[in-house]
């Protein structure tokens, strides 16, 4: 089993990340991936030029690692690969890549669902949307917390 959790300050290329995961998953039968993109519009309908992700010098990497390891231990997966952007992410560009490989598909689907639900509420980032309307901080919603809580 392998767990890779990376904090990426530069552009994130999902195809490269998938290639890395595919290379690691030679004996597996399934790979499930999720790519999160920076939305070009806020919930209030304002145009967003970029998402800015502030992070903590130590706790952010640790949170990514902890969540990825918990995911690998909880589900029957062979490999977990998590890459999360920090810094300024232009709208429509990838913010996160989450991938899991397993012998059979169900556990990889469940693993990625779990990983993303925890990332939304526990990964140590502070996000703000920047656009013509100014800058607005984004925090987890009640729905995000409910999504996380369903895993117990």
């Amino acid at each position, binding site marked *: 089993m392998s767990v890779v959790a990376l904090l990426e300050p530069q552009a994130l290329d999902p195809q490269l990340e998938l290639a890395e995961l595919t290379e690691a998953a030679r004996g597996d039968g399934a790979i499930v991936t999720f790519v999160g993109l920076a939305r070009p519009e806020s919930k209030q309908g304002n145009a967003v030029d970029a998402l800015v992700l502030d992070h*903590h010098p130590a*706790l952010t990497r640790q949170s990514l690692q902890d969540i990825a390891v918990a995911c690998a231990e909880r589900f029957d997966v062979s490999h977990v690969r998590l890459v*999360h952007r920090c810094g300024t992410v232009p709208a429509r560009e990838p913010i*996160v890549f989450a991938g899991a490989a397993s012998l059979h598909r169900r556990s990889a689907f469940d693993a990625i669902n779990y990983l993303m639900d925890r*990332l*939304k509420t526990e*990964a140590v980032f*502070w*996000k703000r949307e920047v656009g013509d309307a100014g800058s607005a901080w984004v925090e987890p919603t009640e729905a995000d917390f409910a999504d996380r809580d369903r895993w117990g």
Partner: protein
Amino acid sequence: MEMELRIRFYGRLADAIAPEIELATGGCSISDLRSRIASDYPVVEATLGRSRACVGDSIAGDEQQVSDADVVEFLPPVSGG
């Protein structure tokens, strides 16, 4: 020179106050520190109440005592993905 407690902020707290400030406290609890910051910067009172305090990259409870040699960090609610 007299030592002052260094306090680091992240996210919207850094935006509203500064990434880092220094305060001479002579030693106090995290709870005292929260009160003092909220008094000095009333605009962050609600966010501060929802923020975790950390000392040495570990969560610090409100009763924990800190000295002016410490660095205390306040982390507002986080969100990744």
